[in-house]
């Protein structure tokens, strides 16, 4: 097997991880909260895509048109009802609150959808093509990657060109100063959490055709999203994008050259190494820890 194969599938999977990481990083940047419910929000996205496909017969990629607004609204309300109550609390209380919300989501899903994993099989789920020789590229992964790129570009322009986007970035840079400039930081927090949720759910929907859909699937993705954020520097959206690709490639490489059992261990060892050697992340500001 050539070296290109794990590299390409790693980059494609990493793109979707990046989307989840960007969502978490945005929430962290604007609200200074580590969202431990992020993985479970991804899981909700997976189920939304699954039910859109099985009940409404909508293709998972097209169902994003529904999933993005629904999950944005869900996240927006979640911030308004729960998260903003603890925005000035110590970090540990914020973490515990989001852990609690995550447990409620995953276990409600467990009661409602049972623990049997669901599989979303589209006509192209297992199709692949060979662009260069023996390297095969999975069609659903490539589609997911392209959609990820499109969403990231839209998000980039939203953050840099629109007034709401600039207000979000201002809040992220300095909450107090932003408030003094007349920005409604409470509203910005809710919007950031809504976007973060929408990105998580989108990432969930995008991997739904290639993964098992399970109520507890969020757990694995939560820790991956954290690794990506820390790697890129907590709060750095660009860093999370690059971090996602790196983690995707590392995973694919370690499954190919070591064993797939150890790939998660390697990801966490990288995570700890980054914390130890460069806690501000690859793109973070110094002294940010």
């Amino acid at each position, binding site marked *: 097997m050539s070296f290109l194969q794990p590299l390409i599938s790693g980059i494609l999977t990493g793109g979707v991880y990046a989307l989840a990481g960007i969502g978490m990083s945005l929430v962290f940047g604007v609200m200074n909260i580590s969202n431990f419910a992020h993985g479970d929000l991804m899981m909700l996205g997976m189920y939304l895509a699954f039910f859109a496909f099985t009940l409404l017969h909508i293709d998972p990629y097209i169902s994003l048109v529904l999933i993005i607004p629904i999950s944005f609204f869900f996240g927006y309300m979640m911030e308004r009802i729960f998260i903003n109550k603890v925005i000035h609390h110590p970090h540990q209380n914020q*973490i515990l*609150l989001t852990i609690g919300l995550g447990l409620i989501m995953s276990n409600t899903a*467990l009661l409602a959808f049972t623990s049997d994993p669901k599989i979303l099989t589209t006509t192209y789920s297992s199709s692949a093509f060979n662009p260069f020789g023996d390297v095969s590229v999975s069609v659903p992964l490539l589609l997911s990657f392209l959609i990820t790129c499109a969403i990231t570009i839209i998000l980039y322009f939203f953050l840099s060109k629109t007034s709401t986007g600039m207000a979000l970035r201002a809040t992220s840079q300095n909450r107090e100063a932003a408030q003094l400039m007349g920005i409604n930081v409470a509203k910005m927090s809710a919007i950031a959490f809504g976007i973060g949720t929408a990105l998580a759910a989108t990432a969930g929907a995008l991997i739904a055709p290639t993964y098992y859909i399970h109520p507890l699937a969020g757990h694995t993705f939560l820790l991956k999203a954290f690794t990506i954020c820390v790697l890129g520097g907590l709060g750095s959206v660009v860093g999370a994008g690059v971090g996602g690709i790196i983690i995707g490639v590392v995973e694919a490489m370690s499954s190919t050259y070591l064993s797939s059992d150890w790939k998660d261990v390697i990801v966490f060892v990288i995570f700890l190494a980054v914390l130890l050697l460069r806690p501000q992340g690859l793109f973070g500001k110094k002294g940010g820890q």
Partner: protein
Amino acid sequence: MKQIAFLSVLAAGAVLLPLVIGENPYVIGILISMLMMAALSSAWNILGGYAGQYSFGHAAYFGAGAYTTMILVTLYNLNPLFCIAVGIVVASIIALITGSIVFRLRGHYFGLASIAVAEVVRLSVLNFNFTGGAQGILLTDVALWNLDLNSKIPFYYGMLLVLVVTLSITAYLRRSKTGYYLQAIREDQDAAASLGINIYFYKNKALLLSAALTSVLGSLYGLYIRFIDTSAVLDLRLSIEIILTAIIGGVGTLWGPVIGALLLVPLAEMLRSNLIGDMLIKAGLVSETSGVGLFLKGSLANAHVLVYGIITVLCILYLPKGILGLFRRKK
């Protein structure tokens, strides 16, 4: 004086309790779970409550104790007490490695790093062969002196002993130099450092103490249940249960974790054994054959984690200082 009298009555009550209720294995089992959770949460409280360092990965130390003891007893049939001691050493090594990584960090990073260490331990145990991997370890026979280890009574006293030791250490710490240093670190790390407190050293000291006690409980748990796997002793859920117990009772108080365990363990047991569903059906509120009745019978037993989630959210929003926080005078 009053306090000492109260404590003596409490201790005597705890020691005599098994004699009063006799050999009812079900009740003893719940009592053991309560003592274990109280002790685990108290041990966590030394680091989380007094030093203010919320570890989200205490399952790693529990699992370290449980796995070390189970492996040594099953493979080499060593004296369990010796195995427990080795478990403490293993947990301490993991704690030292963790401490050297995580105590350089603050806030978000500390919590994340403690989870990552615990996950590395969990996944490694899952992937190694000598740990039994996903199958776990089954212990068929174990002997210590003339104790009847098939009975639950020795484990009741074992857990009680660890709880008393943990509470005594906590009580002593509160009024010792180390304890004051830890509380200073909790209140303001920079101020503590500027007063000449070696914050790195004292945080590690608290972590080591906490990890060692946690590993003893893990060892006892393994010997008591005689079966362990990663989902029972190394899961993130266990770490969260430990924290939640302390939060509900009151973080940074001596008795908070005990009160938390007295409330949470029976609640979890009631949900697990479906007592609430049965009660509703028996009371005639819900028909057994109706949809709701079937749902209660079939699914509610799995709902105890959901209830934990709801309690966590309510507790953080409305009772962040725990039950004991309600009775404390406002400063």
